[in-house]
């Protein structure tokens, strides 16, 4: 009967469809990288079939949580893009682990002293002359020249296809002087000029290889890069792994020493940790505190900590009422009273939090200026005193009369009605992990003990930081009380300070002054800080430190660790709070 074998056939056909459609997924590196004529002289000794000692290729495995979206660190800023960008490409200058700039493609760093930086005090503008090294070539043999620098600049500022990078608004133009020299014209005095085309976001892109039509934001050379750095991309299987080989024509002789780097995408943190322990991975990017603490005792794993801390966990007060952005017209019924903020500061036991939940890897900080060279200001350390906090709240008019453990406004000065309960929503972002979650719960509990009731919310980062039109919580002021981490990269905090504390930055989507802190004193100080006069800056920053400590628009709590765990056999890894860990990959060696 014809029906007898029908189901067999149909069953078989269905399975066959499934199998066939997957048949071509064997190792064919799909988005293949067309190596544009790599040095064809690959007379690598590994090809020889001599049975005697063939030098084995040294190889390390780096595990990361997400597939890099592209090699262009500027447009997605996910960190994973910078990781691979640092392997293959170079910028004019980069930042070391102390936050100091050092030259990469530049022959030397331009400064006022060596004449590289010329300031026009009258007009308030400056010109930076970059002299580039003459011995660096792209992997196809073409030399890296000032053409590439100009090309990169023009691609960045292209109206249709460009993108915004820090400082680009201050640049009037980039002018090529000769093949290896170019001048960047600034229309302000911009202290952050050294990493304008470098640092952890930017590199120089090849003019002869990247497609200007496609543009900076989406060119193919971001996925199939032309390398001038220590490593060359050999293979990229999307969402699975990338393979890099050492660049035989790298300009630093003898470097890099490791022949091959495989970057594997392993989304699960526990699996990455286990791979390190088992020896299947050599480097884990952005290891979190709890895993660092666990790995401490594992013999074949070391953890590299950054000497400079960047990310400060801080509490943001919304000085405007929840859902509004005007702190003057609609002040926050609880937060707008300075005494309340001070009381909250006194009720948070930062020391215990740092030691318990952050395994001692968190350091207490209480001012923005805790990093060299600006850590000279005299700001008193906050004390943990819950009793004093309670007293202060009583004094501020927040008294618990109905005995339910939550204070109400009885004579408070924020304009809240009598009987208004001291309840707020406490938000953080969910992507950080357990350590932050526990910290949040603990802080909520402690504040509950002094009479402030907090309901905990965890939202995705994208919901928190989206623009106000899309309902972004921070920009639209739709919060009471948040905790999350941020910090400035490099050694120049000026842009960062402007973003968080300038009055102009309080306008929704215009800056990141989410707390809506309006203080003309600070505005003036920040304006003045756009100078290269270091002594003046130090003085200005200390004035700011005092004012911010007096006003407490944010509560700075502690720094979070910047750690990368690696196998003991891999030496030279140096975590760098201003960069991604592959910044010095050419210095890595295998024991």
């Amino acid at each position: 009967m014809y029906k007898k074998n029908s189901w067999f056939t149909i069953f078989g056909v269905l399975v066959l469809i499934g199998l066939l459609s997957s048949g071509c997924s064997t190792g064919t590196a799909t988005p293949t990288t067309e190596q544009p004529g790599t040095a064809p002289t690959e007379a690598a000794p590994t090809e020889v079939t001599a049975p005697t000692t063939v030098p084995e290729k040294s190889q390390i495995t780096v595990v990361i949580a997400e597939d890099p979206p592209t090699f262009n660190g500027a447009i997605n800023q996910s960190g994973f893009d910078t990781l691979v960008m640092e392997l293959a490409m170079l910028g004019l200058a980069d930042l070391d682990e102390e936050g100091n700039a050092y030259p990469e493609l530049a022959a030397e760093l331009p400064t006022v002293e060596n004449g590289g930086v010329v300031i026009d005090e009258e007009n308030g503008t400056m010109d930076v002359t970059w002299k580039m090294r003459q011995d660096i070539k792209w992997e196809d043999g073409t030399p890296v020249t000032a053409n590439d620098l100009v090309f990169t600049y023009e691609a960045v500022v292209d109206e249709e296809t460009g993108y915004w990078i820090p400082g680009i608004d201050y640049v009037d133009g980039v002018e090529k002087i000769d093949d290896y020299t170019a001048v960047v014209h600034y229309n302000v005095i911009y202290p952050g000029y050294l990493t304008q085309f470098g640092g952890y976001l930017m590199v120089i892109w090849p003019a002869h290889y990247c497609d200007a039509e496609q543009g900076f934001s989406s060119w193919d050379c971001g996925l199939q890069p032309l390398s001038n750095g220590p490593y060359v991309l050999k293979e990229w299987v999307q969402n699975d792994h990338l393979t890099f080989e050492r660049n035989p024509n790298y300009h630093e002789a003898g470097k890099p020493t490791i022949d091959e780097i495989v970057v594997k995408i392993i989304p699960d943190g526990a699996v990455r940790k286990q791979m390190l322990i088992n020896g299947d991975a050599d480097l884990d990017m952005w290891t979190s505190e709890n895993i660092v603490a666990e790995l401490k005792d594992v013999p074949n794993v070391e953890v590299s900590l950054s000497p400079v801390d960047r990310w400060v966990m801080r509490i943001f007060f919304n000085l405007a009422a929840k859902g509004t952005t005007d702190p003057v017209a609609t002040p926050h019924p609880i937060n707008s009273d300075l005494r309340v903020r001070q009381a909250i500061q006194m009720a948070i036991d930062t020391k215990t939090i740092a030691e318990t939940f952050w395994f001692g890897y968190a350091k207490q900080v209480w001012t923005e200026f805790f990093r060299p060279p600006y850590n000279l200001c005299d700001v008193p350390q906050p004390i943990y005193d819950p009793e004093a906090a309670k007293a202060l709240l009583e004094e501020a008019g927040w008294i618990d009369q109905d005995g339910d453990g939550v204070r109400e406004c009885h004579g408070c000065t924020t304009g809240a009605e009598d009987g208004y309960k001291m309840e707020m929503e406490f938000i953080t972002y969910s992507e950080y992990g357990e350590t932050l979650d526990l910290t949040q719960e603990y802080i909520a509990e402690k504040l509950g003990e002094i009479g402030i009731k907090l309901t905990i919310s965890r939202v995705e980062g994208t919901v928190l930081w989206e623009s106000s039109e899309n309902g972004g919580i921070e920009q639209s002021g739709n919060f009471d009380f948040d905790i999350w981490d941020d910090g400035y990269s490099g050694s120049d905090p000026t842009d960062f300070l402007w973003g968080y504390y300038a009055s102009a930055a309080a306008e929704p989507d215009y800056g990141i002054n989410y707390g809506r802190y309006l203080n003309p004193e600070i505005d003036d100080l920040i304006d003045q800080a756009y100078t290269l006069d270091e002594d003046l800056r130090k003085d200005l920053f200390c004035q700011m430190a005092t004012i911010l400590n007096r006003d407490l628009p944010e509560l700075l709590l502690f720094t979070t660790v910047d750690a990368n765990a690696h196998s003991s056999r891999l030496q030279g890894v140096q975590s760098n709070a201003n960069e991604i860990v592959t910044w010095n990959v050419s210095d890595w060696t295998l024991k």
Partner: protein
Amino acid sequence: MGHYVVRRLLQAIPLMFIISIFLYGLVNLAPGGPLAGRGSSKRLNPEQIAILKRQFGLDKPVCVRYVYWLIGNDWTKPVEEIPKPSVGVFAPIIQCLDPRSYLLSESPGVGKGVLRGDFGNSYRTRKPVLDIIKTSFKNSAYLMSITLVVVAIIAIPVGVISAVKQYSIFDIIVTTLSFIGQAIPEFWLGLILILIFYVWLKNPLTGDSLLPPGGMYTQGMAFSLIDWTKHLILPVTMGVVGWVTWYSRFLRSSMLDVIHQDYVRTARAKGLTLNKVYFKHALRNALLPLVTIFALDLPYIFAGSLYVEILFSWPGMGRLYYQAAVDRDYPMLMAILTLITLIVILSNLLADIVYARLDPRIHYD
């Protein structure tokens, strides 16, 4: 039957339309969006937001974006500035009804639209979404087909024997195991598997872990069947456990239904041997509903299992979707959702057709 198929296919078109509108709304309404910073940057500067809005086409209202998604925007006329709409509560509606919002655009459009096969570019990589999906799709299909084959190999004999030897020790053990298997949360099982086979057990010969913790194959090695198989074992096991219990129980009850039918009794009375009765006559009919269920599960082959892929770092569609959801990569999300929905609708049709072919009692008019 041909009429029936054609009619169903025609009905599928408006169905897909309505679903696509719903999905588009869902994807775009989810709070947050692609204009928030991620990773280390946490937030974007307003300049970056403005640039991205234009590049992603997010400066247009949702209705316009949907139309562009459907039929592309390479027919729009670029103008210097679009007349700003009036403000007010009804502004969005007015904007949606105004044909100028659709025709005029500040930047030239390049999209061709879904109806012409262009699902747009991913916000994350700026490359065509379909290219990325193709690879992930293959990887998911590969894993899932193997899983389903293993499920079938185990479930069918187990289900049949369970039914034939009802209430025997075998049946009781199998039934109990099935219940256990269905009650274990899938991701928990995966964690335990990794714990046992990657952390605890070691290969006695090499000292390495017994099985790899994820990925499809070992990098740098030449293609090796053993290597690929080793990488398959744990993810397949995690997927199989849930399904094999369900399928074997389903087959068991389906088989039981058939066995108790009159004609089976008749066949036995006529003197046919037990085996012949069960395997030649009963099984064939018992498998019918299973084939239907199998065709209905087909979409899972393509959607991939989210938990398996995340836990075992499998570069499939499930993980792709998860990443896109976190990033709010709208084109990617829409493409995956639409494609899977389409596959589901077609699978349903396939299941109905298969069932009709195999069961002579069923007629569609």
